[in-house]
């Protein structure tokens, strides 16, 4: 195969490669029977029975804390199961991980930023040798080009992983498991952190892999992806499978109905919008030609009762702007002006690494930013009052498990997000800077968070929603602007634009 083909990237060339890419021998069936898992007294999986046939493309959905990630991690061997059995091709196994024909793509992709694509593809495998200790670079390179072509990624294989976009990295991770001979691929919420264009590429690559005969099991909260890509939808709720249907028999409405367990309170939401309009718009925060990080001169004002949406690609400086507005990044130039007495609270963009304190309790994670609320003489804390307020917040946000002493690290991703969100609510600031507020949360929680944001604005707070998810922007924001290369584009009224128009600006 012509090694340069992969870098030219013309349409017809790609199809040629696709036609030439080898089919994958169908995988063996995976049978899961009576699988249970509990962490302490917290039962996360309460009996999973699931048969995945070779060649299935399964979409695994469910609200936060339903046990999706736990199921995947048990199959991978990260966790031991409490009881039940797993069969692979009729043979009882303790886990599916660590065999070349099964690949797992977690949110942490396990790629090494400092190495090239080609080297990353070979990681964990015997190098191709010329003789003795000498590596056959040429042959490895060819294999890498072939692997990239198979998933439709057109990049020079010498590129360092660090230079790739998040979506491209995910594609490389998939190419790597395929290269090792994977016929079954588990993908755990890989698209939740990706911008739309990247997730689209990823879904295309997965469809392409499935079409070649591989089994794909994809965990996602995004309905459109699931409907577009999969041929079978499995819905997990409270550790049980509550539905298992062919994707063709479902539409968006049916899926939402399955996922959203609470009735939407449309009327109340309308009241909130009116209340928001009624709030006197006092200026809370003003950025004047602010520079810092990747941001190079941004003007922005935020008024009380207003929800301003900011979006942009990774690397555009979007998150730096959030940190500048909140004050966790010092401005290199320009001015950040806060009205007198205005405080702000932040939901950080990278929940996994910046969100919370894994080995500490839900209570400690919730109250860390607002401890002065419960301060008694001698700098002691009024534990009873703190516990009461924590329980109220747990109830308000419907955090599970509802025990304030639960270890934060054992909560599901969406519940962690709720705790981090609750932390900012307890601060009761005038300005909220919310980065990716709905990342990795289920549809029901998403609605709750939108409602909460509207309530905050109705209460007179100013909210800055910094997100790569356009659904956030159109659900709650009054004004939307796009950050491109450290500069802010013109503001658009949310009601007068649409996602397609917005994407053109990105």
């Amino acid at each position, binding site marked *: 195969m012509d090694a340069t083909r992969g870098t030219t990237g013309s349409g017809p060339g790609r199809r040629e490669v696709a036609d030439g890419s080898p089919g994958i021998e169908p995988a063996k069936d995976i049978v899961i029977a009576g699988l249970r898992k509990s962490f302490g007294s917290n039962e996360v999986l309460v009996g999973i029975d699931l048969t995945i046939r070779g060649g299935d493309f399964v979409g695994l959905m469910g609200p936060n*804390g339903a046990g999706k990630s736990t199921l995947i991690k048990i199959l991978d061997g990260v966790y031991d199961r409490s009881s039940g059995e797993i069969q692979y091709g009729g043979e009882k196994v303790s886990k599916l991980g660590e065999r070349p024909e099964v690949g797992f793509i977690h949110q942490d992709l396990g790629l090494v930023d400092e190495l090239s694509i080609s080297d990353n593809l070979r990681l964990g495998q015997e190098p191709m040798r010329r003789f003795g200790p000498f590596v056959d670079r040429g042959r490895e390179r060819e294999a890498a080009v072939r692997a990239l072509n198979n998933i439709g990624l057109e990049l020079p294989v010498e590129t360092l992983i660090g230079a790739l976009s998040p979506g491209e990295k995910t594609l490389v991770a998939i190419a790597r498991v395929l290269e090792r001979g994977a016929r079954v691929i588990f993908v755990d919420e890989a698209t939740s952190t990706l911008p739309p264009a990247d997730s689209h590429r990823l879904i295309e690559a997965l469809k392409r892999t499935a079409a070649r005969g591989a089994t794909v099991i994809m965990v996602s909260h995004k309905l459109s992806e699931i409907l577009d890509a999969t041929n079978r939808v499995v819905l997990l709720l409270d550790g049980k499978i509550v539905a298992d249907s062919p994707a063709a028999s479902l539409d968006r409405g049916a899926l939402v109905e399955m996922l959203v367990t609470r009735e939407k309170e449309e009327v109340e939401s309308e009241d909130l919008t009116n209340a928001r309009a009624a709030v006197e718009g006092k200026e809370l925060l003003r950025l004047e030609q602010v520079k810092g990080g990747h941001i190079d001169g941004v003007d922005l004002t935020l008024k009380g009762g207003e929800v301003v949406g900011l979006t942009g690609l990774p690397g555009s400086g979007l998150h730096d702007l959030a940190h500048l507005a909140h004050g966790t990044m010092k401005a290199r130039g320009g001015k950040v002006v806060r009205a007198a007495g205005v405080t702000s609270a932040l939901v950080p963009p990278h929940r996994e*690494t910046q969100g919370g304190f894994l080995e500490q309790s839900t209570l*400690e994670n919730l109250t860390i930013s607002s401890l002065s609320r419960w301060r008694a003489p001698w700098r*002691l804390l009024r534990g009873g009052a703190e516990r009461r307020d924590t329980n109220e917040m747990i109830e308000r946000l419907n955090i599970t*498990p509802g025990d304030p002493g639960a270890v934060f690290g054992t909560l599901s991703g969406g519940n962690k997000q709720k705790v981090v969100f609750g932390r900012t609510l307890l601060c009761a600031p005038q300005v909220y800077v919310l980065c990716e507020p709905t990342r990795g949360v289920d549809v029901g929680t998403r609605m709750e968070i939108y409602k909460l944001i509207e309530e905050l604005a109705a209460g007179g707070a100013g909210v800055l929603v910094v997100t790569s998810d356009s659904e956030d922007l159109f659900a709650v924001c009054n004004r939307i602007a796009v950050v491109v290369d450290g500069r802010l584009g013109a503001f658009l009224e949310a009601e007068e634009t649409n996602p397609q128009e917005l994407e053109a600006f990105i």
Partner: protein
Amino acid sequence: MSTTEAAPAADSGVKSGSSLRGGIDVYKLLGASITFIAFLVVFLIYTIWLGGKFTSTDARALDIHQNTPVLLLGLAVLVTLIAGQFDLSVASMATLSAFLVVGLKLNQDWPFALVLIACFAVGVAGGALNGFLVVKLRVNTFIATLGTGGVFLGFSAVYSKGTQIVAGAGQAELPSWFSGANSLGSLGEKFPAVLVWIGLAAAAVMVFLTLRRMRPAATEPRRWDLISAAIVVVIAAILFVLGLSDWVNAISWTIGVLLIVALAVWLLLDYTTFGRYLRATGSNAQAATLAGVNPGKETFKAFVLGGVLAALAGIILGANQGTASPGAATSFLLPAFAAAFLSTVILSTGRFHVWGTLIGGTFLVWVSQGLIVGGVPFTWTEVVNGLVLILAVAFSSVFKRRMT
């Protein structure tokens, strides 16, 4: 299963989270107490093997009395460990402080109040130096504290010209309340038993309140209150049978000081904003920053507090011995770390805490003392300390992995 069946299941599923099913977390309870129980089994074996020679209250109280500087160093290490830092200089600080408290009185004949102030000032300065190096200059914490430890130990040698400082004829003497017979440093001078009883009563109430909060959802509150009270009464009864009154009467002033300091550090770490900020810092400094905590400031404070506690350990060592010898506290570093790490597996699941440090450090010394009483040469002590430290930390690591 069809989708039409799914909707009702989804409706009813919202509130039936498995965490509400109730029941005490047996696994967690076992995990928190298994090391504690393992130690008790060892002591039971010692009791069968050695009888009264091991179970003598006075002898075991003497162990704690002599071990008090180590336990104080354990608290010093604990404070910095919570902030995620290893302070390797505490033992050297204790040695320096022991030299100062004895030497400034005996050789320079300073007023004793001034001597004590000087010791604490050196502790603050040493801790601040560590904090400055680690927080401001971002020197690796091992290297920084290893270096300052060398400096502190060096200063003590320079000050004493490398020899022991002992009271001699014609020299000033240490105050009689501080060192010698019937003083702070002697085993004979007992701490007021009333205070110990008050403390124990308070502890019983604390245990009761903690138990009450652990109420399983299935049990009704009134019933659980009774169960909690019963548990406290049973524990108290067992302790009385095991000779609690003898123990209360065996507590020396040195041990009393240790308990008061431990109480203060416990309140500071678990019931103040400082303690919360410190734990957040040690857990994830970046997340702490974004949550509005200043990790550098909290870490600095932790090093200063560690320095003060190390200086106090040196003072108590001086009081106990009445003399100061080169490297007096050097061998305390390992058991101090062992005690702090044992706290993560004694009545706790992976969390550093004050009472576990005291219990761990005490159990550690009893394990080696039992062997010594049984005829094993005392030179084996370090081997035992090392092995127990490794076992405890390995155990806590394995356990943490299983919990998350």
